[in-house]
């Protein structure tokens, strides 16, 4: 198609002038001062602090590594958000999506001696393909059955696909070197961050273009979507492709962060953590998903508990930091599901409004529209 767009009969319409919304006017110059300060702090915390640049603190290599993991989890959370949030398909086998990405990238880099960037991109591609294959199954099933299929698929992948020696190196695992120039833990953080920025941009574009709108429409009301000319099957698969793409990237990055990929960590518990962090973060809320994923990444192995010096208080109830996430995580999930449907994203919303130059105000969660009986 060469022409930008053929004129449709809709172009006979005339524009009408509308008054400008009052709330659209920004704050005064003075109002921008605290906002700019917070912006500057956020930029420093994300861009400079982890690399010990212009920072009075010394971030240890171990801590930088944890930050990389948080960034990677954010990518995985965004992947699951596309599936659960946008397309309405629950994946309880996302550890397999991520794991396949990890082993693919390690294979490309170690066995085929290619660049890490290429490895991660191949992982993204392979992730998209396997995701679409699973998506084909979803076309014939309702949501609940599909969730069960993904659960079994994930366990199967862990026990079977990840046990293929040639692909994964068996129980010893497969080496996955860091990219040139990003060998140190501090630098690798920036490598992962670049990918997160890319994924965020893609996700942002997705919702602002045809494909994303089609996916959102078909999740809530497939019948209406069809009458608008949306091929619901094709766009469901498109959602799977995007989710697989993101998961593959996340897996590849995880592999090179760990330097050695083994199959063991990609178990069902990890799949549950992924679902947890995305839901607690707040489905269909980009900021919330990123925050939720990072939170759960830091919570792993009690890292956050130690950092916040909460190990002592938890000791009182006999809860060791190591197991704290296993107790705190599900409780947070149940609280979010029953009391705070918007998750972390809902809590962050007033701050986002404020930072964007509007008033600081609480925005109530949008209730999910459920179509139980679409009478056509």
């Amino acid at each position, binding site marked *: 198609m060469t022409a930008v767009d053929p004129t449709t009969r809709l172009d006979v319409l005339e524009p009408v002038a509308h008054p400008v919304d009052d709330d659209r006017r920004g704050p005064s110059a003075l109002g921008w001062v605290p906002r700019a300060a917070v912006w500057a702090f956020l930029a420093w915390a994300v861009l400079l602090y982890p690399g010990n640049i212009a920072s009075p603190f010394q971030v240890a290599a171990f801590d930088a590594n944890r930050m990389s993991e948080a960034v990677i989890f954010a990518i995985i959370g965004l992947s699951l958000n596309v599936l659960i949030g946008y397309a309405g398909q629950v994946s309880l086998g996302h550890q397999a999506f991520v794991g396949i990405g990890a082993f693919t990238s390690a294979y490309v880099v170690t066995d085929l001696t290619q660049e890490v960037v290429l490895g991660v991109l191949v992982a993204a591609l392979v992730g998209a393909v396997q995701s679409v294959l699973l998506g084909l199954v979803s076309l014939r099933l309702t949501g609940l059955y599909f969730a069960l299929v993904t659960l079994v698929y994930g366990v199967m992948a862990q026990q079977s696909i990840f046990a293929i020696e040639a692909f994964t190196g068996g129980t010893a695992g497969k080496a996955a070197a860091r990219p040139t120039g990003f060998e140190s833990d501090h630098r690798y953080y920036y490598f992962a961050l670049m990918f997160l920025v890319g994924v965020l941009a893609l996700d942002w574009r997705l919702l602002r273009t045809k494909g994303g709108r089609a996916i959102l429409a078909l999740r809530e009301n497939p019948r209406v979507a069809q009458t608008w000319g949306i091929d619901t099957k094709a766009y469901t698969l498109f959602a799977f492709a995007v989710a697989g793409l993101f998961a593959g990237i996340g897996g590849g990055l995880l592999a090179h962060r760990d330097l050695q990929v083994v199959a063991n960590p990609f178990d069902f518990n990890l799949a549950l953590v992924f679902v947890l962090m995305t*839901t607690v973060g707040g489905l269909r809320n980009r900021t919330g998903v990123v925050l939720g994923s990072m939170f759960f990444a830091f919570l792993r192995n009690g890292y956050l508990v130690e950092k916040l010096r909460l190990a002592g208080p938890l000791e009182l109830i006999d809860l060791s930091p190591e197991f704290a996430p296993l107790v705190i995580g599900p409780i947070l999930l149940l609280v979010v599901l029953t009391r705070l449907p918007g998750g972390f994203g809902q809590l962050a919303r007033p701050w986002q409004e404020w930072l964007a130059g509007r008033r600081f105000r609480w925005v109530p969660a949008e209730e999910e529209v459920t179509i139980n009986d679409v009478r056509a």
Partner: protein
Amino acid sequence: MLAVTGTDLLQSLVIGVVNGAVYALIALGLVLVYRSSGIFNFAQAEFGTVAVYGAYFSFTYWGFPYVVAALFGVVCGIAAALATERFVIRPLSQGPKVTLLVATAGIALLSIGVAFWRTGDNALRFFDPLTQWEGARIAGVQVSGQRLLTLLLLLVAVALLTAFFRSPYGLAVLAASQDADASALVGLDVNRISMLVWGIAGTLGAFAGILLQGGNAFTPGAITSLALIPGFTAAVIGGLTSLPGAVLGGMVIGMLESFGRLSTFDVVPGASSVSVFVVLLLVLMIRPEGLLGGRTAT
């Protein structure tokens, strides 16, 4: 393995049925909850783990007599199921089914987390088998008393549930599952019915757990990792709404595993999980209503 003899086949059959009984118990609980409220309960097997831990603690630390401890474990499993219904399922009953699914998965994870919290990581626990009776030899296979007890319990459970669904109260459960609002209008207490269903599901899960783990070492989440997926697959094979279907499905999965071990298929890594996945897919693609189910999955 060079050749498979008739005896091997027979033995595999017996082992399959015996192992399948536990899956069938889990599947029955899943079917019950799905039938009454359309929910996939990912915490079903975890009720069994709760029962195992309850029995273990009351026996080892609090010095309960053995039988009392086992029964206490079952009560713990039921309590977990009832708490799940009251504090998670009921507040979310108007929400999307997918939310409920995530919530039950959260319950399972919470239960596993609490077990880790109380017992630590690699601490393997051990609870004596329910019976020291050595059992019987069937077709050259030594079947322990514990296993025979499981089979017996399965039969009792199926008989009781079948009778229950013919009773007025059982019919009320079915009515409530068809149309909760209408049932409330004609005076059925939908909440009590829901409690009852989850209570029964908890009982089934608890017994499955105690019977499966008695005599074996266990770690947190033991029953979930051992029996959740086979139980679910069994329920789906049986059609998810059919009680006899769940039992049949349990047996099919049990045999699939035991025959899988016989064949040379064994050289494929994770053979049994691959075969479960393939069977699940085949059933869902070819006969989504299951072998004995009435309604379709799509």
